[in-house]
């Protein structure tokens, strides 16, 4: 089954959704959408550096995503307006990444695969990385679930209960960096954040508890991946963008369902 590129693509999308569903919920609840964007855009710089130093693309993007996440947290802690800090960092990282990539002749051709992803080119090794990373992130979030949720609800409440909100922030930062690193080949740097946010936002209307929303977000992510692949196959459209388009369609549907329910 793994010999079929379409099966590999579907499995990659399903595996990734296991992580992006629950993580995306936290991105929505904590209003970290821009944070996700900044981390993802930094990944392009990671790709360029990985090629430059001849290391694995996964290692390069993971390292850059982590550096960016730490940088953003620091800036925010210093009292800079968050959206300004993120706007500066996200777009600078993307710009530097594009500049650095252009200095390497071999990478110029490849770059669009990392900007927009190419889920249909996922190899068996990529598949192993995606599932490994996604399961690690899902496991990490499941393990820290109660503490993450309490810290997300109210930092003071968490601290009064003896939890350290900064540690939970680190957990999410780490999870985000891993997700960015493993998904850059699938949906690309420009669309990773949307894979986090859109299924989670769509899941909101149908959920009464945080757990239900996380599970629903993962399910909607899988549905988007499969639907997007179908769309891509039928209309010969780019797979990554098609996946996000289907997710957006599901979100629009959820608005209608939510309105009827209310």
């Amino acid at each position, binding site marked *: 089954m793994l010999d079929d590129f379409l099966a590999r693509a579907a499995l990659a999308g399903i595996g990734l959704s296991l992580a992006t569903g629950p993580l995306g919920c936290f991105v*929505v*609840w*904590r*209003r970290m959408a821009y944070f996700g964007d900044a981390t993802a855009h930094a990944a392009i710089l990671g790709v360029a550096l990985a090629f430059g130093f001849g290391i694995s693309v996964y290692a390069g993007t993971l390292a850059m995503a982590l550096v960016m996440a730490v940088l953003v947290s620091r800036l925010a802690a210093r009292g800079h307006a968050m959206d300004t800090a993120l706007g500066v960092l996200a777009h600078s990282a993307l710009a530097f990444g594009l500049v650095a990539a252009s200095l390497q002749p071999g990478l110029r051709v490849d770059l669009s695969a990392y900007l927009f992803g190419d889920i249909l080119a996922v190899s068996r090794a990529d598949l192993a990385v995606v599932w490994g990373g996604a399961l690690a992130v899902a496991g990490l979030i499941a393990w820290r679930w*109660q*503490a993450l*949720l*309490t810290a*997300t*609800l*109210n*930092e*003071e*409440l*968490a*601290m*009064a*209960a003896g*939890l350290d909100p900064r540690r939970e922030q680190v957990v999410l930062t780490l999870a985000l960096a891993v997700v960015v690193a493993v998904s850059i080949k699938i949906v690309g740097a420009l669309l990773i954040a949307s894979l986090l946010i859109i299924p*989670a*936002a769509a899941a*909101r209307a149908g*959920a*009464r*508890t*945080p*757990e*239900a*929303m996380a599970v629903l977000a993962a399910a909607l992510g899988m549905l988007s991946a499969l639907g997007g692949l179908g769309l891509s196959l039928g209309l010969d459209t780019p797979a990554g963008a098609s996946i996000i388009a289907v997710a957006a369609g599901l979100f629009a549907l959820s608005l209608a369902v939510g309105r009827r329910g209310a």
Partner: protein
Amino acid sequence: MTALIEAQGLTVRFGGATVLDRVDIAVTPGEIVTIVGPNGSGKSTLVRALIGLQAPAAGRVARKPGLRIGYVPQRLHIDAGLPLTVRRFLSLPARVSDGAAAEALARCGVAGLEVRQMAGLSGGQFQRVLLARALLARPEILILDEPTQGLDQPGTAAFYRLIEEVRATTGAAVLMVSHDLHVVMSASDRVICLNGHVCCEGAPSVVSAAPEYRALFGLGTRGAFALYRHEHDHDHDHDHGHGHDHAHPHQLAAEAEDAR
């Protein structure tokens, strides 16, 4: 008795401004201590420093090792994107059984709200659910930061009655911040009047008569003293379980109006 929580010479600065200046405070088991003070007097900062949310610039804060704190924050904003039933909320940070959750809600006078969304509660219900959650940690001390903000006067009086009941049944100490002067005095064993530093402190009758307190809050606060006397005319040692109404809210509200 050894203090549950204690600060000595606690000084907190924000930038160049000294918000708290050498504050000494201690709460011992089972007592109800209320911090009153005008806006900007450092009440919330003091509470945050006692819990450990705010690092002191000088002085020290000591908490009994392993102290179980039940905290009711001043405001709890729940993001519209976060679906949360009352039942689920009660299971944060530690999961509790359905039975314990139902009992805590009943004790706080909001039985049966489990399936409701937190975002859909009224102000009074919301505060009571916050209190119920704090009680589930079996706290040795309850810390409440202006818990009756946004409640009307009968709602506020009822909430403070509930706090007294909780202290009576669980033996937890209570530290609260308030500017509901008229009602809060009655519920407290000790009042600390704060304005960057501790202006005066002691039994409610002592504090409301103190010149420092009068200077901060004006003469209108004589009404608070009247209320205090009114409620405490009752014998306090008897059993609370006989439906005896302690603090007739309508009468209280009327007297508070008279006092102005």
